[in-house]
């Protein structure tokens, strides 16, 4: 268990700590994270883009004093990019330097030494305790990749055929996020705690914006959160997430705006609305968006 974890007595205590570091979780998320720490289980987070899945992992690393190791998934990612790789040029140099004199068996053995191993994110997380391992957007990786993760998630270990098994002295906290573009295999999910992250309700969203953009006026934060809530119910191609609310407020503040009006909204709409079709629609109904 991570050293710093023992101080969290309850989900509420963990929630307060996250709050103190600038992340405002609801009770479900606080309970899920609390259980992940206590039970040493990976936390599997799904939800719309921009609801704060990645930010949770970052904040958990901050409050536990652990190092954040991030693995961004993509199609075709394999063990040599996620777990470990051999440093081939150095191996060959070593081989050349030894010349013909050395004992062949001995030499071959020395080639597969830890110093020729390049640690990729997952191995890094196992070796650098305490750590928070963020496996981001696992749905972007193909399903073959999930098999690599099973051993890591169950035993906090990586087995390297030439070298043996490397086990974490202190299991990292693993946070896996998915945008749900495909279904992740059940074998992986059943090792995890599953949580669906919702968009925050209005008051919480205002509080989040105030926390992230403290220099912006309270009134502006409320106006932007209200406008974003209306955008979410307008069935856009891409409804804005909390990340967009924060970006939009920051953009408005940088322009010196303290009250959201039609003119400033139109000028900065690109911070919240990311599709041209959506922009056209929203611009047409701008008055309604601002609450009339």
């Amino acid at each position, binding site marked *: 268990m991570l050293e710093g974890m023992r101080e969290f007595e309850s989900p509420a205590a963990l929630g307060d700590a996250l709050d103190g570091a600038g992340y405002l979780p609801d009770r479900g998320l606080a309970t899920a994270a609390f259980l992940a720490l206590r039970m040493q289980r990976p936390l599997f987070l*799904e939800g719309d883009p921009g609801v704060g899945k990645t930010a949770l992992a970052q904040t958990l690393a901050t409050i536990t004093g652990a190092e954040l190791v991030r693995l961004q998934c993509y199609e075709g990612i394999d063990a040599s990019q996620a777990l470990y790789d051999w440093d081939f040029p150095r191996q060959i140099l070593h081989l050349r330097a030894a010349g013909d004199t050395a004992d062949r068996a001995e030499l071959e053995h020395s080639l597969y030494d830890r110093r020729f191993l390049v640690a990729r994110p997952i191995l890094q997380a196992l070796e650098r305790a305490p750590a928070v391992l963020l496996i981001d957007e696992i749905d972007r990786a193909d399903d073959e990749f999930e098999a690599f993760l099973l051993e890591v998630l169950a035993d906090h270990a990586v087995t390297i055929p030439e070298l043996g098994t490397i086990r974490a002295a202190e299991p990292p906290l693993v946070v896996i996020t998915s945008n749900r573009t495909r279904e992740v295999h059940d074998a992986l999910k059943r090792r995890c705690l599953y949580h669906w992250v919702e968009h925050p309700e209005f008051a919480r969203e205002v509080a989040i914006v105030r926390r992230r953009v403290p220099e912006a006026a309270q009134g502006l934060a409320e106006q932007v959160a209200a406008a974003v809530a209306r955008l979410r119910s307008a069935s856009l191609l891409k409804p804005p997430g909390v990340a967009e609310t924060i970006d939009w407020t920051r953009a408005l503040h940088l322009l010196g705006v303290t009250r959201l009006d039609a003119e400033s909204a139109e000028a900065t709409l690109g911070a919240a609305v990311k599709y041209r079709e959506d922009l056209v629609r929203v611009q047409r109904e701008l008055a309604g968006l601002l609450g009339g």
Partner: protein
Amino acid sequence: MDYVPDPVVTLTGFARALRANGIAADSTRLATAIDALGHVDPLDAEQVYWAGRVTLCAEPDDLPRYDAVFDAWFRGRLPLPGPDASGRPGTTLRIRPLAGENDAGEHEDAEEADEPLRTAASPAEVLRHRDLAALTDAERDEVNSLVALLGPRMARRRTRRTRPGGRDAVDVARTVRRLVRAGGEPVQLLRRAPRVKPRRLVLLLDVSGSMGPYADVLLRFAHAAVRVAPASTEAFTLGTRLTRITRALRLRDPDQALAAAGAAIPDWSGGTRLGESLQAFLDLWGQRGTARRAVVVLVSDGWERGDATLLGGQMARLARLAHAVVWVNPHRGKEGFAPVTAGMRAALPHVDDLVAGHSLAALHELAEVIARA
């Protein structure tokens, strides 16, 4: 008298009730849930609710069902946490009462649904489940022949993963291993080439009343497709709402799979809101990735109850995401067919192929089109 229920017994019964409602709360998950309960305050209903939810549920479809069963199971023993159920995708499934999975009312409905060719849509949403009788031997043969038909014919795509072989990229890892074995002498450059995989196939089946006569065979086609490539095939039904039936169709036995799919579809033989349910598909699944670079097969007669402009717009959106869009119209095979329904006319500019799907022979053609895509 102080009666304190054993938490393990309570949770085991609860998990059983969840399973009866279609949540895969197996013994591994139950053990995790019991473990989790030891870490939270068992007298705080909200903590119990969340501890159970993060351990027993596995996808958003499970959440409304979990809420309903939690309400039913713990009502009277614990106050209800009352979580907000809004904004989650995939909440199309109706919760049935805990007891009496198949009550008599549904069978009556199913009989009614057998009437051929009801009018295109009814204003009130008709919620009915399909009671698929056990397959006859002939139908079972048909499923098997569909599997055989589709098996070697899924469209393929190159992946970013590689296999040994080819003539282009050097496989450094294998070459170096070979080189080390040869004492450091470069012996031979080994190559690697991209692997191919089945391209994702998405089947969207219109199950409204006007499609009634064809729905059975198309559902069997969908089952065959899911069986051939379970990891890369998704199936949904469109009617008055969107329902994902991929999970049900993954069951190997056709009887079980079709019964499960029939039970999952709440709007069987109801009206059509094609544009809206297609939009729901694109919002919740398609745009996030399910439709991207996929072959999308939409099976419908194009009878659109609402305004067809929405359908046209959504079809354009689908065409931008998908690798190929195939529209299967069962009426296409009839003589004198012209795509005149409003929905068909709006959709046609965004369709790569328009094929018939009214007979086994026509499904051969469809399989051909899917393979070519």
